[in-house]
């Protein structure tokens, strides 16, 4: 398996040779910059009128892997980068379920691509395994470093070393169906601002007694879904779900128990669509889009899609006594340990953080960017709901959870978190302490 290492090296070497030739031709016309120290004099590659923090743009071919759920954003970003740069990024989209296995195999044989994205909750595990290159100083060199939403960068920091930048943000917010709210006599412009209001409004929709229409919905057999939608309820209430090291679960707190009880009450009142109990996550956003759900926490990325069929009201996910929070999910991106062209790879990352990418690509297509100073832009201002999502993302209560064993504790199909909330909502409801200890046992390994 080790011998495969050379396979990745040779094309890159030849690419560098070609790139050096191209750069040699272009060198006379450009004005310097780039990281010249790594190249022999004479064919110094240069970023076209670039600054030092922008890395090197010399016509190198870069490889980039991401998982299928980020395909749309990744394609837009890569197309925009390739159109405006000499470097060319080759994008590989990997099916979601195969991604960990593919990255693992490549990491073992030293064949990781130059750049690769990772589900932000898995990033601590991957940084600990040493899959990424240290980019602490490069991030610090960015003139707008302080304006980047710190959630992903913090999740990608291990032992004080920064490894990743935000690639695509996926945020959870509260969605409600304005038409159903009007029918139920609720204010369609004002969603729930506390957990109790969420419960009242879901029950009010249920009380309409419409065929096939339910108050709310959740992925009852999907750990990842409820990490995404329930954690913010706890954060907005001022509590945390784990200790700072991510080695101990705190889901037996009074606040957490109140969240579980709220869902349990709704389930027992019949206000949660019965499909919830079996929902493995494949279709958890479906019923709302069909107009059958009153109010539920939902991915903000699907706003445009949901808008096509539903008059969507949008707000932050509330805590017990108010406040808002969101789960800053999505994918972080870093330079792999195997990349031989880190200066060129950094050029892509630096561009990714620029206004061109953040506003010109992400905001233009309705995605939430990573730059907090660019949240108010020409595209977001067209829809006040998008501005609101950006504001929620910058709220101090909004977080990305950090734990090396997050996948095993919360996302895996046999995760103890799944056992905890299923027992708390559908089961006896008195095993939270024991189930929380089971999560701690996994996290603390």
């Amino acid at each position, binding site marked *: 398996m080790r011998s495969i290492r050379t396979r990745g090296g040779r094309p890159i070497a030849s690419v560098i040779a070609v790139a050096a030739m191209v750069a040699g031709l272009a060198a006379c016309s450009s004005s310097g910059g780039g990281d010249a120290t790594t190249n022999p004099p004479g064919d110094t590659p240069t970023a076209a009128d670039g600054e030092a923090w922008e890395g090197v743009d010399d016509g190198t071919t870069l490889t980039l892997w991401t998982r299928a759920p980020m395909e749309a954003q990744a394609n837009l970003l890569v197309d925009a980068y390739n159109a405006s740069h000499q470097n060319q990024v080759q994008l590989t989209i990997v099916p979601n379920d195969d991604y960990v296995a593919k990255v693992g195999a490549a*990491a073992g044989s030293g064949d990781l691509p130059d750049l690769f994205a990772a589900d932000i909750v898995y990033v601590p595990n991957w940084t600990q395994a040493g899959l990424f290159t240290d980019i602490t100083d490069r991030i610090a060199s960015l003139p707008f470093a302080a304006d980047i939403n710190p959630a992903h960068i913090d999740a990608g920091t291990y032992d004080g070393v920064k490894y990743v930048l935000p690639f695509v943000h996926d945020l959870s917010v509260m969605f409600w169906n304005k038409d159903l709210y009007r029918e139920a006599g609720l204010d369609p412009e004002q969603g729930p601002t506390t957990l109790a209001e969420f419960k009242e409004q879901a029950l009010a929709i249920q009380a309409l007694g419409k065929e096939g229409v339910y108050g709310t919905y959740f992925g009852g057999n999907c750990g990842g879904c409820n990490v995404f939608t329930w954690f913010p309820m706890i954060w907005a209430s001022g509590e945390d779900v784990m200790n700072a090291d991510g080695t101990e679960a705190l889901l037996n707190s009074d606040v957490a128990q109140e969240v579980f009880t709220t869902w349990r009450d709704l389930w027992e009142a019949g206000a949660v669509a*019965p499909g919830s109990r079996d929902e*493995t996550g494949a279709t958890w956003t479906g019923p709302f889009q069909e107009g059958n759900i009153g109010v539920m926490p939902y991915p903000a990325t699907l706003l445009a899609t949901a808008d096509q069929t539903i008059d969507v009201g949008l707000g932050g996910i509330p805590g017990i006594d108010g406040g808002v929070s969101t789960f800053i999910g999505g994918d972080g991106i870093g330079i792999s340990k195997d990349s031989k062209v880190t200066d060129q790879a950094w050029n892509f990352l630096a561009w990714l953080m620029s206004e061109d990418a953040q506003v010109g690509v992400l905001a233009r297509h309705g995605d939430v960017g990573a730059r907090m100073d660019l949240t108010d832009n020409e595209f977001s201002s067209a829809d006040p709901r998008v501005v609101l999502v950006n504001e929620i993302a910058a709220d101090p209560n909004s977080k990305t959870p950090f734990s090396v064993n997050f996948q095993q504790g919360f996302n895996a199909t*046999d995760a103890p978190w799944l056992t905890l909330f299923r027992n708390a909502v559908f089961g006896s409801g008195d095993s939270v302490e024991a189930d929380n200890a089971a999560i701690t046992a996994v996290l603390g390994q």
Partner: protein
Amino acid sequence: MATTTITPSAAAAPRRRRVSRVRRRAALGWAYASPTGVFVVVFFILPVVLVGQMSVSDWGLFAGNKGINAPDNFTAAFAAAHFWPAIVFTLKYTVVTTVILLGLALALALLVQESNRWKNLLRTAILVPSALGLASASLLFYALYSPQSGPINPWLQSLGVVTEPISFLGTATSALWSTVFLIVWRFAGFYMLLLMVGLQGISGDVYEAARIDGAGRWQTFTRITLPLLRPSLALCTILCITGSLLAFDQFFILTKGGPDNTTITIVQLIYSAAFAGRNNLGLAAALSVIVLAALLLINLVQFRGLRGKDS
């Protein structure tokens, strides 16, 4: 006298020729077998050796080989959270599937054998699901069983069979039976075909003789058909048991081991040890070695038992 004397050199010549011919034939044999041999070595022996090495090493998915740590992986495997429940569930699933599948396949084979007019239509109808990949079939049933979009519940409700929607994958029992149903639907045709070939191999003379001796239908079935079908049944049993013990796709797609970890099969356990968070290839390899040993043992017992009366 001189004519009867055979000189040693004259006798040795044909022998040497014969030996060299034998050698050449042997070499030719090896040459014929070598492509297969290469495939066996590259695609079977080497991977098994690699798995063996992994199973005694500290081998993380990302970290790579960190050296021998035997027997830590095996102790961890036996202590793994869902190890014993997974074994119990896999065995239960295997017994249920094998009994139903083979019983039904035999019945179908006899039915198709007997009826003449609908023979071709029946054979085709029963065999068509076998043309579908198992993963595709699982996805199809995932949609059919879905509480959101599945059509089965609305049908049943409109026919008045049920009043409340059935949760096909919602409880441990229903998830098991829903999966068994999928597997039976998918594989009944395949096993029917195997048994049909066996049935056609039984000479008509035997049946005629039995009829002349006054044997009834049931007697013909138990005394003639079943014993003569034994090799085909043995093949089907071994295929079905081995296949069921290694069940993965259908559960991975339909239930993901849920609800509440009640449908985790042993191969799913291996998968989740390697890729779903633990990222521990050493542990996964140790589990694989345990499964391999168990399979060898089970197949050995089956061969013994099924061959028994023939010899």
